[in-house]
């Protein structure tokens, strides 16, 4: 009952105070899909500084990271978009500390990382309700039909949160943009390489279309 009242209030208040509202743009996706690499690319392009560290070992981002007051400008320079960027830990259904051992970590560090990673997944899910718009970042070299991807996107749709699918790592030979598009035909998909900045400008234009 309370949540319904809150929603009705928000609906009215958002119109009156829309100019002051900070848009939260979330980066969601499975581990190692390049969320933080993309966050760094966005921050570098518009703020001139990076956001977080990246690694080939999964679950490098284990806490929610926020960069506030980023202003995005459209290609023609006529539109501006002010938002807070929220980088989230990768969502997974399993975490095995032995995988971190195989990556060369000590047992103590591997166990600590696994414990932090589980908390990170929980935090990322809790933050779903806070988002205004979400970029779902997928590794375009991997199977897009994984249940984690479907669950994230399904939950965002149920919450009426606008979604843009970012098929990342398009610089790699195995990248398959068409497969990602075929898996989620009802959503806009942009193929990019966050690492090399390829097609990132297209992504920005699509963000403008998404947040009207």
């Amino acid at each position, binding site marked *: 009952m309370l949540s319904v009242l809150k929603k009705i209030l928000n609906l009215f208040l958002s119109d009156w105070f829309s100019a002051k509202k900070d848009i939260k743009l979330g980066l969601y996706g499975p581990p190692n899909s390049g969320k933080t690499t993309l966050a760094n690319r966005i921050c570098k392009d518009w703020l001139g500084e990076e956001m977080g560290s990246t690694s080939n070992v999964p679950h490098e981002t284990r806490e929610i990271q926020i960069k506030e007051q980023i202003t995005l400008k459209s290609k023609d320079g006529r539109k501006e978009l002010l938002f807070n960027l929220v980088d989230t830990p990768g969502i997974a259904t*399993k975490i095995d500390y032995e995988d971190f051992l195989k990556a060369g970590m000590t047992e103590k560090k591997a166990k600590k990382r696994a414990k932090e990673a*589980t908390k990170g997944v*929980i935090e990322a899910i809790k933050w779903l309700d806070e988002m205004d718009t979400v970029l779902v970042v997928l590794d375009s070299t991997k199977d897009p039909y994984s*249940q984690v991807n479907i669950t994230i996107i399904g*939950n965002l749709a149920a919450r009426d949160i606008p979604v843009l699918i970012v098929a990342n790592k398009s610089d790699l030979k195995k990248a398959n943009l068409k497969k990602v598009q075929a898996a989620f035909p009802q959503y806009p998909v942009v193929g990019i390489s966050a690492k090399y900045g390829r097609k990132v400008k297209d992504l920005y234009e699509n963000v403008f279309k998404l947040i009207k």
Partner: protein
Amino acid sequence: MVTLQFMPYTEIEALSSLGRIRKLLNIAKKNKIVLLQGRLKKDEETELIKATMEEINKEFKGIELAVINPKQEDIGGLNKLKNDFVEMLLGDRSGMTIIGPANVVKSIKKDPNKIELLTKERKKKRKK
């Protein structure tokens, strides 16, 4: 040996969301693969992931999850309305949900039309 446990939707129908998640997770923690008739609600799926993360320890590494769903896009007009109404009243009984413990199931590969479940090979203990 891999154990598969089939669960008709009626077994979870009367349970609360938390009850459903606990029931499914408890079976997976016993190293059994659950084949659930139908599917959980979308928010229950995320709650299942959250609950799984809370339970991870040295023995339990998490789950592999997959939902097979018949193509809903092909159903049009009145039939879709009918399906949505039945789903609202009785829950989503179409398709199947597979929940396997990560200790047993290595991965589940899903294509729109088929599903492949890859299990882990158990390490043989040498007799001294």
